């Protein structure tokens, strides 16, 4: 039983990291009032780039770095269109998704299906690794797990809710006109955090293709970017919640994998539906059951609305 539980949690932590990282980036972008629906495409682009660079350099860290650079380049294009030129965020997001999925498959064609040269291998952290169940799951995995689940959310949470910079950031997402009036550079804030969010989405792709399923194949992101966008709603736009939501999603997928490994009498494609159906339930059930949730976990007020100073 303990072995089973340990395995389940380890898989959940590993698989959920992709979501936790991408959702963290989306939290930042949406907190400044920009919905980035291009996460799926940026993740695919990051995943393909990471594998290509990893094959050339045999260094997963350079792969991750390259993926984040490509992610932020994609984010800069998206921010240029939506923040500077104020085009529709929904359309540009979808366009970035098509562009990313198409481009990643085109550039990744040469390495499709090949095992990567170097992966983020598991490293056991002494002492902590020996804690039952939790030890192997969090401290016996690759070195990115702790940054994704603990360090990054902690930094984001502290920055958002305990610094002046974070207060300004949230003001830009809630009421850009008021933020502008007190001298907060709205456009700069939006551009910067959209790019940072996109870099994290690219990084999530690298984590997927170098740590979770160490290879590139077309369609490997398979909706994880969209799930990340959905988890941001479920997490109420809060960094710690986003990391937790990623872990919860990882657990749902892990149950599916467990079912396949243990030969449950359910077909594999049906078990693979679990993450999508689970996410659907995550975002519908809470608001239906608990009306107060809508007010408590409200989206930033100016989410999705381009800011134009002349229309103030």
């Amino acid at each position, binding site marked *: 039983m303990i072995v089973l539980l340990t395995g389940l949690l380890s898989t959940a932590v590993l698989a959920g990291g992709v979501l936790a990282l991408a959702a963290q980036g989306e939290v930042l972008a949406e907190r400044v009032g920009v919905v980035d629906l291009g996460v799926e495409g940026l993740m695919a682009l990051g995943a393909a780039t990471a594998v290509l660079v990893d094959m050339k350099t045999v260094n997963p860290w350079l792969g991750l770095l390259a993926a984040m650079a490509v992610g932020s380049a994609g984010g800069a294009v998206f921010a240029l269109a939506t923040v500077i030129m104020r085009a529709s965020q929904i359309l540009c997001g979808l366009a970035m998704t098509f562009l990313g999925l198409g*481009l990643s498959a085109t550039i990744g064609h040469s390495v499709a299906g090949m095992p990567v040269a170097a992966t983020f291998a598991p490293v056991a952290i002494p002492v902590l690794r020996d804690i039952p169940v939790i030890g192997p799951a969090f401290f016996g995995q690759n070195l990115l797990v702790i940054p994704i689940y603990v360090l990054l959310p902690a930094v984001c949470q502290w920055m958002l809710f305990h610094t002046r910079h974070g207060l300004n950031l949230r003001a830009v997402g809630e009421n850009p006109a008021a933020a502008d009036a007190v001298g907060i550079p709205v456009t700069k804030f939006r551009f910067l955090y959209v790019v940072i969010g996109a870099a994290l989405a690219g990084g999530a792709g690298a984590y997927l293709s170098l740590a979770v399923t160490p290879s590139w194949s077309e369609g490997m992101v398979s909706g994880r970017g969209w799930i990340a966008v959905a988890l941001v709603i479920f997490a109420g736009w809060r960094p710690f919640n986003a990391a937790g939501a990623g872990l919860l999603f990882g657990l749902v997928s892990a149950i599916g994998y467990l079912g396949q490994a243990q030969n449950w009498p359910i077909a594999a494609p049906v078990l693979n539906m679990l993450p999508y159906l689970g996410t659907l339930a995550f975002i519908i059930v809470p608001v239906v059951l608990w009306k107060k949730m809508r007010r408590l976990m409200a989206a930033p007020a100016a989410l999705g609305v381009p800011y134009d100073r*002349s229309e103030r």
Partner: protein
Amino acid sequence: MMRFQRFSTATAGYVLVWRALAFVVAMGIVALLLALSGRNVGELAALVARSTLGSRFGLEDLALFMAPLVLTGSAVTVTSRIGLWNIGGEGQFYLGAIGAAAVGLFVHGPAVVILPLMAVVAMVCGMAWIAVPTLARAFAGVNEIITTLLLNFVAELLTYWLTTGPWRDRVTGALVSTERLPVAVPEIWGVVHWGFPVAILVACGLSLLMSRTSWGYEVRVSGANPGAARYAGMPTRARIVAVMLLSGALAALAGMFEVAGTVHRLQGGMSDNFGYLGIVVAVLARRSCLAVIPAAFLMALILDAGIVLQTQQLAATAVLAITGLVLLLVAIADELAHYRPVVAEPVRRSAPGVSS
């Protein structure tokens, strides 16, 4: 003094000019990338022109692409009239295909009875697939973009499961596919079947429904100003439910024609992104049900050109990237079309002693 000012509406002329520019830029970028990868762009362009609009096969393929695109484009357009986005066309397409295949595989009878039954079952399946996002949107205010989209992946897996499991082809052993359906939508011109004229008729019918009926009027008002619509006593919630179910049915109808007219089997991955490309079609059509037809033509042309490019050792996925590029530039063009030059009034000087 001339300056550019943003207006809340964009005139058709400006939109057309900016979009033409967007297309030129998109094609320029594609041509540049092709040239950089060492291909003769002029020859490729001539080849594309010859084998799309310049050949019988190209034209037939164009019509085959257009039929599902008109329907999935209409599906997104009707929801956009009430201010919503159905991004789940892909999933509803699959459900329509599954419903049609179920009738084709398990109900036997004359085609006159079977084909309409297929269409009805397909549309009911499509409506069932969008029902949960619809109710969540109408009664709990849950954003429909994510909920409709997530179900696409479930529908794809469902199709995969059916075509590799219970409904797999036991006759010829085709992979990820059902057996060939015994009935088919009759063809009218080469491989072009009745799906094409039906899709065009549906688009025209929707245009009348939206612009000439009080139901359509209520939908448009509910989309433009929900508060005003409720104040005027319009049943906005009922309209949201009806429009989204209609949208699901339209996308599912596209799936039915694809199964019964074009592919003749239910296959995993058969949708070819028609559901997603319907969004692009709807954006190009700017929420007009009639303009969906030329928009679908343009999109079909891109897909048709993609087939030619594939024969030239270019990955099929390059078409998706090109579509993304076009969509991005069109979205920017549509926003820029809101700006018009205005002549600023000269500043009045009332300095003493200066007479004019």
